């Protein structure tokens, strides 16, 4: 870019989304910088998960633009978007319950065809998530919530993505696992993968994020660097539904 400003890896620009008659997003604009962790905060029914679905092509916006690495994602199917380099950790993990842990992790590499490097990456996952080593041949559905989250993250990493989108990665986990997951997100990010995560737990998310957006009934009401937002009382107001942030 001529201006010297770095083009964001992922950009949503003026996205408007509808479910039937009901509008979910109002002129939503979000940017995820290269190498950054960006989190989208908001209460129930604020349109967070729909934002994830827009990025992954599971829901089509009525208007607006979504670009990844400068190219538009609008009109692409989910598998095509995944092939561009976006991996996901869906809400509630969504593992393939009757497949083994190994099969689940390898499913993450579905878009790749390089057998040897896939095997190497699997070994890498086992060093990143050492607990999974003993669980490889177990049914994924039989793991605990925290372990399943590990599998879901390993599965996402197996596609060697440039961006991982995560929907509430800490939901329903014990405090011990919450810390562990946040630490892992940092580790993943340090290796160069950008992260876009949707979270309800603002204080946790702001600890690891670079930037954050606060979504309230489909509109971005606040955005900025995580450091400044951490102490901003308006974040809490947004959650509680106060319309006039003081």
């Amino acid at each position, binding site marked *: 870019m001529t201006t010297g400003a770095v083009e964001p890896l992922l950009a949503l620009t003026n996205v408007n989304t509808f479910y039937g008659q009901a509008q979910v997003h109002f002129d939503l604009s979000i940017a995820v910088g290269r190498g950054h962790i960006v989190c989208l905060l908001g209460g129930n029914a604020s349109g967070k998960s729909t934002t994830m679905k827009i990025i992954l092509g599971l829901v089509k916006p009525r208007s607006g633009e979504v670009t990844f690495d400068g190219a538009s994602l609008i009109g692409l199917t989910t598998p095509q978007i995944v092939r561009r380099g976006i*991996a996901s950790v869906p809400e509630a993990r969504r593992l*393939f319950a009757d497949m083994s842990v190994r099969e689940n992790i390898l499913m993450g590499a579905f878009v790749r065809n390089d057998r040897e490097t896939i095997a190497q990456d699997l070994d890498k996952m086992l060093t990143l998530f050492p607990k999974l080593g003993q669980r490889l041949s177990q049914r994924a559905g039989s793991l605990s919530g925290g372990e399943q989250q590990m599998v879901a993250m390993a599965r996402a990493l197996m596609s060697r993505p440039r961006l991982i989108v995560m929907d509430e990665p800490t939901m329903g986990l014990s405090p011990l696992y919450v810390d562990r997951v946040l630490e892992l997100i940092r580790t993943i990010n340090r290796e160069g993968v950008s992260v876009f995560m949707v979270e309800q737990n603002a204080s946790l998310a702001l600890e690891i994020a670079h930037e954050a957006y606060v979504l309230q009934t489909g509109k971005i009401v606040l955005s900025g660097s995580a450091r400044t937002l951490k102490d901003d009382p308006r974040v809490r107001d947004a959650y509680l539904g106060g319309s006039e942030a003081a």
Partner: protein
Amino acid sequence: MSSWLDYTINGLIVGNVYALVAVGLALIFGVSRLINFAQGSIYLVGAYIGWVAVVQLHTPLPLTIILVAVVAALVGLIIERFGLRPLQNSVRIAPLLATIGISFVLDQLVMLTFSPNPRALPSQLPDVRFQIGGGTIGPLDLLIAGVGITSALLLFVFLRYTKLGWAVRAASQDRDAAMQMGVDVNRVNQTVFGIAAALGGVSGLLVGMYYNQIDTAMSLQATLKGVVAEVVGGAGNVPGAVVGSLLLGLVESYGIAVFGTSYRNLFAFLLLVVVLVLRPNGLFASARQAPPEPLTGTFIAPSRPVRIPRWAFAVAVALFAILPLLPVSFYVLQTLINAWLLGMLALSLTLVAGTIGQVSLGHAALLAIGAYTSALLSLTLNLPVGLAIIAGGLMSAALGTILISPSFRLRGHYVSIATLAIGEIVSLVILNWESVTRGPIGISGIPPLSLFGYDLVDPKAVYWFSFVVMVVLALLQVRLLGSHLGRSFRAIRDDDIAARAYGLSLNRYKSLAFIFGGFAAGVSGGIAAHLYSYINHETFNTQQSILALTVVILGGLGNVVGALLGAVALVGLPEVFRIAAEYRILIYGIVLLLLVRFRPQGLLGTI
């Protein structure tokens, strides 16, 4: 002299044939949560392709099998691409209805091409029997077993060791998550339909050779047997489908050994109902686990009903009421009498399927109960016909509700399967309970319609009689829908869990709906019996159940006026255009397909 070993071998061989159908159903259910009612039609196509190959082209056996598999797979791919893929974002019932429509179209095309007469499909194997223990086994038995085992092995290897196989498994466990791994779900669907169709087609060929005969009635039977085997094994469970099939084959074979051939199907459907009631997820899943169905009522297309002004109703009713006084032909009256009878059945089905959301595929059984009750009461007890018809309606309401009640705890697709099976059971009981129903001979000499001692033989009188009965039933139903009861029905349809949380007893309301609906259908059957003067166990068959469903969907599920309009349209229009009878079923199938695709809420909208 047949020994037990023979029956066991026979059961396992037949089970192998069922397995080829059921495995395909299980694969499709796994990926699409869809029970493919067109599977039997592909099986039929396979049998006839086999006949062309063997009798006309004289192909050697291996080539015949390959040819059948390839053509059947192509048919499967076409069904998936043009019949089902456009419905991906449609209401959940749409693909199910589409497969029913497709099966009508395919069966009818085969019938029109090859005529409904049975054809001999010679086995290309030498006719020798080997003695083993107390039984015998022939080369065809070995071939069927071989094809079954080879297919199972190939399928296992495919699912376990190939990338596409992994994609199939992943998609069947979590479709959205699989897409997020980069799996192209359309390709998975295609693959699954191709495999299912190839297996189904080969199964049809083998069955044709086994019984040395093929005819177009094979189709529905194959679908039913495949569905039974699949559900017994657990919907979507591929190894379960194989075990379920073998079990079904054995149960049938032993049933025949003890009770005789005409009981074969009865055992199959009883097995299904027992499994559905006790273990709705099949024998290999825990009984407590809920069947994989949506929790709330996205099953029926939501829409706003078309408003029709009151005066338009009044004018329409008046016009139809004075119609016999106008110079119309006997033929027109006859056609409309049929429409009114179908209209009563449609009223019943639109209440049950539309208003309370229990999509019944066995509604003709209610006609049969009403017809037999009324016919037998008037014949053996000399009950006046008017009373007998009312008794038929009451019997249909009571017996129908009792028979259907095991399915009350089921949802969605499972209700449809259970009602289909219950409908078949009724027909088979009528066939086999000779002391009461006169079995396959049927009942003849049923007295004509009469009212207060006057016989109604003049078509005008019959017309008015059936029209008035239908209008009264329709008015009652409109009144019902506007009441608290009607609201409760719709609440249960839209979200049964929420309805239960508000204190509605699901069983009670479902019973009430079936009692009311059963009465209307029973009266229709009763009138029909006295009109036809002869009925047997096939007078009211599954085809009529499906026709009624098409009528109801055409009008708009739950819509009383729509049901009557649908009946007039589907009975009347083919007559107006003088469409030959053999093309009618084809047209019903096409109408169903077009409706599902372009107007799932029907002409007048769902209520």
